[in-house]
């Protein structure tokens, strides 16, 4: 059994968890909620085992590098982090409804990684440009940002579909606007810090590998565009007092920019970061 086989199974575990979270939300069965959390945790364990296995396999092949070096591995890591960030939030606010919005992201990322013909899942050796200790620091920080923004986007969607307090129905079970707004803000701040550190580690690394800390490469430029969007959201909130709906929309716009930085740049534009597309 290979790691990629094991990892492809997490797609279905997270899909199952998403279904359970949905049932828990719509029919309000407490026990199903617990089952959903347990399923998600089991998926996370399976995925963690898969990632460790892949790491070990790369050493057996004689390449020996952390599984963070191409699109497949980054998708697996993105999915893994989204689940980690979500489980922390679930544990902190003791509510499970958000799970119905977070687990599909993780399942979708794994499905794309495992079953798209565009994504190569074999372990490849590191080309010279990637042979650096900065690889791990850069990828982990960037993806902590991406995963937080994914969760913030999910929260933004929830904010927009939730009716005003006092109404009834399925949507009214979602956390209150006040709670969603606060969570969204906290997650954006968290993601913004990691995106900033991700850009900084990237700059330091680029200076070491290419001799320039900023070269307006499409990936760099798009990460800066994303940074501008979230900087706008934070300033609009601090100074203009923007809250709720406006921030929810900015959170979704910001995530579109994140997705373009992640995928769009690789598939539509060319540049120095081309190894992210294979």
């Amino acid at each position, binding site marked *: 059994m290979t790691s990629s086989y094991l990892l492809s199974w997490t797609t279905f575990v997270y899909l199952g968890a998403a279904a359970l979270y949905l049932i828990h939300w719509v029919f309000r069965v407490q026990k199903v909620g617990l089952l959903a959390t347990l399923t998600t945790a089991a998926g996370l364990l399976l995925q963690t085992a898969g990632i460790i296995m892949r790491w070990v396999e790369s050493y057996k092949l004689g*390449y020996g590098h952390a599984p963070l070096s191409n699109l497949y591995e980054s998708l697996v890591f993105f999915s893994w982090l989204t689940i980690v960030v979500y489980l922390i939030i679930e544990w902190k606010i003791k509510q499970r409804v958000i799970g119905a919005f977070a687990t599909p992201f993780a399942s979708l990322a794994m499905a794309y990684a495992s079953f798209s013909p565009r994504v190569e899942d074999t372990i*490849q050796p590191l080309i010279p440009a990637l042979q650096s200790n900065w690889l791990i620091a850069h990828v982990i920080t960037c993806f902590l940002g991406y995963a937080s923004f994914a969760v913030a986007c999910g929260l933004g969607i929830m904010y927009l579909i939730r009716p005003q307090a006092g109404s009834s129905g399925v949507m009214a079970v979602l956390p209150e606007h006040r709670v969603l707004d606060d969570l969204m803000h906290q997650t954006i701040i968290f993601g913004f810090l990691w995106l900033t550190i991700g850009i*900084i580690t990237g700059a330091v690394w680029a200076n070491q590998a290419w001799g320039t*800390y900023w070269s*307006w490469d499409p990936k760099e430029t798009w990460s800066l*565009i994303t940074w*501008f969007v979230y900087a*706008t959201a934070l300033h*609009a909130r601090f100074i203009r007092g923007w809250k709720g709906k406006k921030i929810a929309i900015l959170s979704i716009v910001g995530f579109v920019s994140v997705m373009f930085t992640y995928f769009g740049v690789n598939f539509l534009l060319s540049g120095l970061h081309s190894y992210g597309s294979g």
Partner: protein
Amino acid sequence: MGKKNSSKSNPVWNFITSVKLAVFLLLTLAVTSIIGTVIPQGEPLQRYLEHYGPAFFKVIKALHLYDTYNSWWFLTLLGLFALNLIACTIRRIPFTIKLWKRDSLALDLDRLMRFRLKKQWKVAGKPNPHILEKIKDVFQKEAGSVTAQKELESGQIFMVERGKWSYWGLYGLHASILIVLVGAVIGSLTGFKGNLMLPEGEAADHVLDRKSGQPQPLGFSIRCDKFTVSFYDTGAPKEFRSDVTILENGKEILKTPLRVNAPLTYKGITFYQASYQPMPEAQIRLISPDGKETRVTLPAFQKVPVPDLRLVLGLYQYLPDVHGVPAVRVWIEDGSSPARTIWVLKGNAKEFSSGSNTYRVSLVDVRNKYMTGLQVKKDPGVWIVWLGFFLMIAGFVVVFWVPHRRIYLWVGEQGGKAAVVLAGQSNKNKIHFEKDFEKVAEAIEKSLEE
């Protein structure tokens, strides 16, 4: 007073310091940055004309869209952004000073009782110094040392205040962005970037500046002794390595390998392994009609005159593997007929004629030499950029996670009985603060029960 009013109503100042301008600039920078990721940058102008047609080419040329991020309008936007950042930050200073100077102890019991986070206890008996000391001790043990205290008409109030300085974190964060920009400007004004193609065995004492095209002296020489490239079984490159020597006045100073991700810095100039080019060197043998043998070495990119035979030869093309043997395409010029090329495979001699003579040409061997491609950079501003990055992360942590928190303890008399009130406030991370507050409250409650 008059001066203040005039500065407040100055429309230019108001515009520069407005948050509207800040948001407008952030979003405009975001949107205009997209242009340079969609239109390829730094190509020869002719390419844009071919690809986009004459109408759009005019726009590209007028707006410098072939080099968007160095265009006048983009640099103007960045300059405005810096100006707006400075102006907004300066405008905020009085507000921060007010926050910072505000006396956190300027309150009374009534105000304390209106805090969202508070606890109160009644204690049997009249207040006495013994109880006061005991409670104060417990309070200090849990909440930290008292930073200020004062007498109120009905009792005493103690305060533990932390992180008031965090109001200044914002200035560090904003300054860090300016520091990064200053570092970038200093780097581009006082440094240079260049490319250096260095064949094995050769040395260079200058590089061509990428922007101006002018030679930039290094102040020393760098020689490429050997270049090696290795591959994985998959065919992907594993390592590019140049063994280089630094020379000063002809003396060898330093020998070191240069790899991708492991550059060499000498006297403030850094060399990066960037590319390479194979430079084959072919050895051929010519046999004249009279049976005389001539050996000629043909390096890449050079014409080699062979005066005895009145020929000029060159290596036009090289294929390492044609049906299992190496092959070279030899370029021949003899002054009379136009230049031509012939393919020569190893172990398979060919004939060609020049004038009335017919020569047999055969390939002796091809040696694979390389030319290493180095990026050369001098950037005295890079340390300022690093300082800016460090300050940015530190400023971030202060702005978002260092709270200004205050915990108050009031001990006094209420309705003839001793009473204790605990209240607290934090401007950030309120959930965490509530937990800390609960701990202090529990400790005080426990001590009162004893």
